[in-house]
């Protein structure tokens, strides 16, 4: 179990294809960075995905894809001290940064699904 599941996160999209997750992140982030599969965030979560993997920043929130074999892909948002560190790291490493200033004028789309716990989400 990765640390993501222990953190407070918001689900922005759920049970979608990875392509849809990428498109959502590209359209709904202030800044978009592209990372390789296996890029590590939040100490021990390695991002699963089809390259190029879009990771976004919106304010202090990190927006990223999360894929599980039986549940499809999700877009998660985490905003805390660690997300600020992750965004700073992405800015410093500058992996194919793509910033669209027009995106900043767009109103923030509120999360479609409220925060939930890992145990509830993956209960079998």
């Amino acid at each position, binding site marked *: 179990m990765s640390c993501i599941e222990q953190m407070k996160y918001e689900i922005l999209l759920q049970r979608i294809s*990875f392509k849809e997750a990428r498109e959502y992140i590209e359209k709904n982030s202030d800044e978009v960075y592209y990372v390789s*599969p*296996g890029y590590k965030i939040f100490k021990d979560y*390695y991002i699963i995905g*089809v390259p190029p993997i879009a990771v976004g920043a919106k304010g202090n929130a990190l927006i990223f894809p999360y894929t599980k*074999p*039986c549940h499809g892909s999700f877009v998660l948002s985490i905003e805390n001290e660690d997300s600020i560190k992750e965004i700073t790291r992405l800015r410093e490493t500058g992996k194919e940064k793509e910033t669209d200033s027009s995106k900043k004028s767009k109103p923030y789309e509120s999360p479609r699904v409220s925060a939930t716990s890992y145990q509830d989400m993956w209960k*079998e």
Partner: protein
Amino acid sequence: MLIAKVEIRINLTFLQIKYVRDKIMTDSKVLLMMGCPEVPIQTSIALYLSHKLNKSGFDVTVAGNDAVIKLVKVSDFDGYYVKKMVNLDKTLEDIIEKRLDFDICFAFMHNDSGLTFAATMSAISQAKMYSIIFGKNAEALEEAIEFDCVKIVASDVHNPTRLKNRLDKVIEEIVK
């Protein structure tokens, strides 16, 4: 006398080649990367493939989520067909951190998540990739694959025979 010497030499060369081939196979590490087990033929094909490769001398590991591991362990409770079972997330972590890698990977997929995991494996590992694509969306998935791999495709859900036959041909090529 000369013919006998030639025969002995040929036999020795044959044995040496066989030894080298067997040694390569024994040293070859194969990963069966399982997807969501909701399509019935996956578990059946995994048990078959694991056993067939084990018998051919490969070092086979099956990786999956908890549901996959439970299904395989109940089906093969003595570990006759599957010798090694591991958690998929942990395996990917070990490959990313360079603690582990494989020579060959068979990635099972019948949905977008399976394709996503296979694309990740293709990017992080040195393994030669074989995509086992099945289920109702097999053709669409096959077209969506962009990474380098051998594709073994059968749009079946319940009957594993076509997929098994196609895999047999691929294994023949690998073992040659």
